[in-house]
Each structure stands twice: as C-alpha cells, then as structure tokens.
C-alpha cells in the first residue's frame, strides 16, 4: 500500500470502555476519490461539478421524497446520545464525528438549513448549516467511516438507522461527481465481467478445476465445482473472494462437499459470479438492481430451480431482504423453497435429516467462537423464525466442532460489533480506520481467548474474513485464527458413505 503514517492498533481494554471525545482525530481519514474512469461507467459525473452545491441540495430533495427512512430520521432525532457509544468506529477512534448521531448531523444540519422552516428562520440556533466545501469534505471523510452495520439502529429509541443516512450521503456525493474509488471501480467490474474481482469465465473455470484436483488429492473424492451447468437444481451465488482468498476458499470447498454428499446438483454461474452487491454501499437502488438482475438472468438461463447464497454478510442482506423486490418475482423457481436460500439453511437441514454426517473429532484441535456478521444479524433471517440467523450458524458449528464458545452477549447476536471493514471500507488506504474499528470485536475475542482458550474465530462473510485476517495481526493474533463456517463443515463431513 501507499506509504503513510504507521498504523498502530489501539491498546485493548479489559472492560468495554467509552473513550473521551477527541474532536478531529479521524478528520484526515478518507478513501481515494473515484477517477473519471471509475465514475462514468456507472453514469456518475467524472469530477466534482461546478454547480455541485445546488445539485447536492436538489438530490437531497429527491431522496427525501423517495425514502421514508431518510425523511423521518432527519426530522426526529432528539440528540439523546443513546447511540453515541454504540458505534465501533467511535469506540475505536474517540472521534466524536463517529458517534452515529454526530455523523447524521453532518447531513441533518444541511437538511435543516434547506428543507425546514426552523432552519431557514433560526439557522445555527437549531443547528442548521450550509453545504460548504468544508462540510462536503467532512461528508466524504465521515460517511466513509460508517460501515453501515446498523448497530446504532438497534439502540436508538426510534430505530434511527445511520446506514440509511450514510447511503443517502454517498448517493448525493456520487451524483455531484465525488464518488469512492474502491466501491465504484468494483461495481463497474461486476457490470462488465460479473464479479468484484474481475475474474473472467476462463480464469474462473481454471480455478474451479484446480479446486477439484486439490480436493481429490486431499480426500480421494470426485467433488465437482460445476460452472454454467444448465439444468442444475441449485444456482449457487457466492462472493468472488471464495474463489481463492484464504480462508474463504476453504468455505467454498465446504459447500461443494455438502452438495456432493447430499447428492444435490448445483452450479455456479460465470455471468452472476458475485454474491456481493456494492450497489448497497453507495446507496444506489439502480446500481443494486442492475447487479441483482444478473442473478435473475443467470437463474433463467441455467434453468435452475433454487437460488442459494454462500457466506457473505451484506450479500445476504441484499439477497434476503432486497432480491425479491429488486429482481423478482421468482415464480419460475421451485415454490417449495424460499427465494433465495442461505447455504446454512441447506447444510443445517442436511445435518438434521442425516443427509450429511459430520465427524466432530476432525475439529477436536480447535476451540471455536463465532462472529455474527452485522448484516446477517441485524437485517436478515435464515429460517422461518426471527433469530434463526443466530441459531443456524451455531447449530452447524456445534455439529462440526466439539468445543464451541460464544463471546460476550453484548457483542453477539443483534448486538454484534462490525468487523470494521464492511460498507465499502475494505480498502488499504483505510487500514488505520479498519484496525481501530475492529477494537471492540477484538476485545471480546481476547476475553474468550483468555478465559476459554479459544483458538479459532469462525466467520460467515467474505468481508469479515478478509478484514480479520488483515487486522488481527495488529493486535497480536495470528491470521490463521480466522476460519469459514463451511471450512469447519468441510473438515468434519464424512465423505463417501451416502445414506
């Protein structure tokens, strides 16, 4: 990465502590601005427009009419501060602008100034402020210090969701020509090639063949990694990091073994070779829809009966909560199954029905804990019951590992802390922020490492996996600690004996 200030992890606290505020501490943290080449493929202006201020206000007005969340949340915050100490980025940096309410205020002040009578009449008395270049820079900085994890929304008495505000702010910034390079470059790759990494079909095919050989060598089994197979029962859509990043790829091997043992035919698609949908990060319904429609087309072209998603947090949010709306109706699929399904719904079902058998001894060397991904925890379900998004992964982990320990209840389930890399922040120039943002999660991890001898952290999201392998070493933990849920399944699954 580019030479920059030395990145140092904050000292971990034994008890969760709330830092004293340190104004401006993270004012300099911002991601690279998108160049023309990253903006234009998405239909955004290539550079900051000369009349950006007027256009930004007009865009805000448009969004106020389109999103009830934005409209209501900008009005009703009472500045009680209940959310202030709930954001991992505030807890990790102490910068008060990383308190959810103060982050919202960056946009709310401008809203007050331009869209409310009180703001027009009383101005600063009610906190109204004009959109200046300085304010725009603050937007760019601090709306890219929100991982859209929605922990604040759990604790706010009105459910005010700062992610909705960040998304709107990013959409406004894109529309005036100041987008974020990381997200926009990736979205363009998906539109063009089909996945975030820009892996074309031949490369993908090669990779999958390589995996077949690896599995054959290790287990002696002919486990297939099918690509673009028409007429398969299941279309598996998984984050492209699963194709070769560690430990993601071990998760992919796990899914393949599950399908193999359960005798369920499946395929990947080279056209829709990405579960992630960065359109959500930039708050763009249109971009998100365009990406989602690739999955619909792949399902139609390959004549599958079910769509199943691999391990990824925001991908599962877009899939579970938005896919049906964005790209439905999916009346051409088998109506006996929800659309889409999570791989863990299948795996847990197979374990319970006996279609696959797990041998827990295979993971006897590990004491495992689990990181609830923010998007899965706070925006989805897996089964029919509320809360199944917590139960299913734990059921699977307990079936695959003899020793499982949960972290502190204030840091799991819907109170889970973000890994610090979600929401389009998983880019090297934000590493300092990412290390600091991981602090609350690592504190909880440290606790179970010390009290229960935890050796492994199971993750169920491509971003969490990449983020943890990168930042844990700053806190003195080995990156090998991070495992995929389906990696543990893949280790434990009994191959060969079909039931």
């Amino acid at each position, binding site marked *: 990465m580019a030479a920059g200030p030395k990145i140092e992890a904050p000292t971990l606290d034994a008890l969760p502590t709330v830092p*004293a*505020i340190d104004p401006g501490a993270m004012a300099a943290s911002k991601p690279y601005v998108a160049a023309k080449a990253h903006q234009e493929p998405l239909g955004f202006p290539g550079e900051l427009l000369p009349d950006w201020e007027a256009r930004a206000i007009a865009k805000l007005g448009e969004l106020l009419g*389109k*999103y009830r969340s934005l409209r209501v949340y900008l009005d009703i915050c009472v500045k009680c501060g209940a959310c202030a100490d709930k954001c991992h980025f505030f807890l990790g940096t102490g910068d008060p602008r990383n*308190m959810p309410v103060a982050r919202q205020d960056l946009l709310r002040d401008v809203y007050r100034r331009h869209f409310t009578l009180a703001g027009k009449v009383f101005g600063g008395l009610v906190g109204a402020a004009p959109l200046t270049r300085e304010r725009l820079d603050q937007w760019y900085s601090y709306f890219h210090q929100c991982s859209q994890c929605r922990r604040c929304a759990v604790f*706010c008495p009105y459910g005010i969701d700062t992610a909705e505000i960040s998304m709107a702010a990013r959409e406004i910034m894109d529309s005036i020509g100041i987008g974020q390079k990381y997200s926009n470059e990736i979205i363009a790759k998906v539109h063009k090639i089909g996945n975030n990494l820009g892996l074309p079909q031949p490369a993908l095919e090669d990779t999958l063949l390589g995996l077949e050989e690896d599995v054959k060598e290790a287990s002696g089994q002919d486990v297939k990694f099918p690509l673009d197979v028409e007429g398969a029962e299941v279309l598996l859509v998984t984050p492209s990091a699963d194709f070769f990043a560690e430990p993601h790829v071990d998760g992919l091997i796990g899914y393949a073994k599950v399908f193999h043992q359960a005798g369920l035919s499946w395929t990947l698609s080279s056209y829709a070779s990405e579960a992630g949908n960065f359109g959500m990060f930039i708050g763009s319904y249109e971009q998100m*829809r365009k990406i989602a429609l690739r999955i619909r087309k792949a399902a139609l072209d390959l004549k599958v009966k079910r769509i199943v998603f691999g391990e990824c947090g925001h991908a599962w949010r877009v899939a579970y909560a938005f896919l049906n*709306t964005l790209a439905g109706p999916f009346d051409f699929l088998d109506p006996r199954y929800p659309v889409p399904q999570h791989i863990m719904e299948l795996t847990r079902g197979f374990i319970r029905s006996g279609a696959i058998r797990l041998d827990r001894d295979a993971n006897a060397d590990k004491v495992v804990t689990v990181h609830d991904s923010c998007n899965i925890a706070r925006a*989805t379900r897996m089964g029919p019951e509320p809360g199944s998004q917590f139960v299913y992964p734990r059921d699977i982990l307990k079936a695959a590992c003899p020793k499982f320990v949960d972290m502190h209840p204030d840091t799991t389930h819907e109170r889970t802390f973000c890994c610090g890399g979600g929401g389009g922040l998983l880019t090297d120039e934000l590493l300092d922020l990412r290390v600091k943002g991981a602090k609350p999660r690592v504190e909880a991890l440290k606790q179970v490492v010390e009290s229960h001898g935890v050796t492994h952290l199971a993750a169920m999201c491509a971003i969490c996996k990449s983020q943890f392998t990168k930042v844990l070493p700053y806190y003195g933990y080995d990156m090998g600690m991070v495992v995929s849920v389906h990696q543990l399944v893949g280790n434990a699954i009994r191959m060969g004996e079909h039931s």
Partner: protein
Amino acid sequence: MAISGVSTFYAVLFYAATAIFLGGLAWKIGQYWRTPSPLKIAVTPAPVSAPGAALRVAREVVLFESLFFSSRWLWIMAALFHAGLALALVRHLRYFQDPVWEPVALAQPFGIYGGLAMLGGLLMLLARRLVIDRVRFVTAPSDLLMLLLLIGIGISGFGMSAMARVDVVMVKAFFRGLLMFQIRPLPIDPPLLLHLAAVAALMILFPFSKLLHLPGIFFSPTRHQADNPREARHLAPWAAKLEEKS
C-alpha cells in the same frame, strides 16, 4: 365583566397555537405517510407479521424498549419525564371537561406527582446534556432551549399553586369558553400567563422541531416493518417505474 386585552390575546394565541399544532402535525404525518419505503429495512430479529410489528412499535412507544437496553440511566430520566408529563396532561383535562370524567377526576392527586416527576426528569436530562462530553458535542442551542421551555412550564405550573393561588374556576371557564368559541376573562396572574404562553410556544414549535419524534416513531421503517421480504415483494411506485423501462 369586561374582557381585557390580555384575555383576548391569550384566546387568539391558543386558537393560533392549536391550529398550527394540528395543521402542522397533519402536514408532517401526511408527508411521512406518502413517502414510500422502497426496501425492507426492519432491524432484525423482527416480527414477521404486521400485527407483530405493530406490537413492537407499541412497546417502543409505551415502554421505550430499545432505550431500556441502550442506556439504563437515560431510560429512567426519559421515563420519569414522559410518564410525568402524561399524568400532568391527564390532570389538565379537567380544564376542558364539565362534568369531569371519572378517570380524570381520579387521576387528579397523581397529576401533582406527575408534575414533580416531569420536572425531576427534565432537570436530570439537562444536567446530563451539560455534563457528558458526547451529549454536549451534539447539543445545539435549541436542544437546551427546548428543555428550558419545558422546565419553565413545570415551574410556572407549580408556582401557581405555591405562590399565586390562581382562580382555577376562572381558568376553566376561559378554556371551556374557547371550546365554544367564546372569549371569557382570564385571571391576570404572572405565573399563569407565563405557564400558558410557554405551553402555546411548545405547541407552535412542535411540528417544526425534534418533538416530531412523537409521530415519527410510528413511521420508522426499521421498527414498523414486518420482516417478510422473501415472502412478499415490496415495490415502491418509483421503483416500479424502473421496471417499466427495462
């Protein structure tokens, strides 16, 4: 008895305040109602049915459930203030009713405790806003003024019974009169006039301020939506137009 200018002023003030309060609220509620939610964004775990979601909102409104798990001290202060205010409001219904409803009559003695709880809660909220650095950082002058206004209403309210011994029969006649579009005399007592002016100011500010959290909580998508996106599509009109295009 001749009607003083002060009585007329207060009569007009209360008609105006009521009109602005009701009209402003109706306008904001209409605006919230009309603005679509294009996506399902309920914070999960969430109820999967509409009645379940309604119950979730009701728990937030009545019990401040999220706040309870968020900050216990703040919950105590907020509960004291809001519950106290509710009791005091019920007590004040007697100024508009003749005969007074049985429940309102029964609530009279508790109304005083309500007023005390409200004032205590407000003072704690004010202290908290000034003392905790995080809260001070997000406090605008209007946040303090709002608290001071409410404290002013509470103190002037108690001031009437403690120092001035306001003629409550006359006050009641004034407000009953307003209900029948008649202007009747109001006792000219400074604590009463202060109290009423502050209440009118609060009513006027309501639809333009953060007091909108009252109607707003019923329109918060993360709370009021049922969690059923796989079962049902959820297409906003503007999003449906995108489908016509492609």
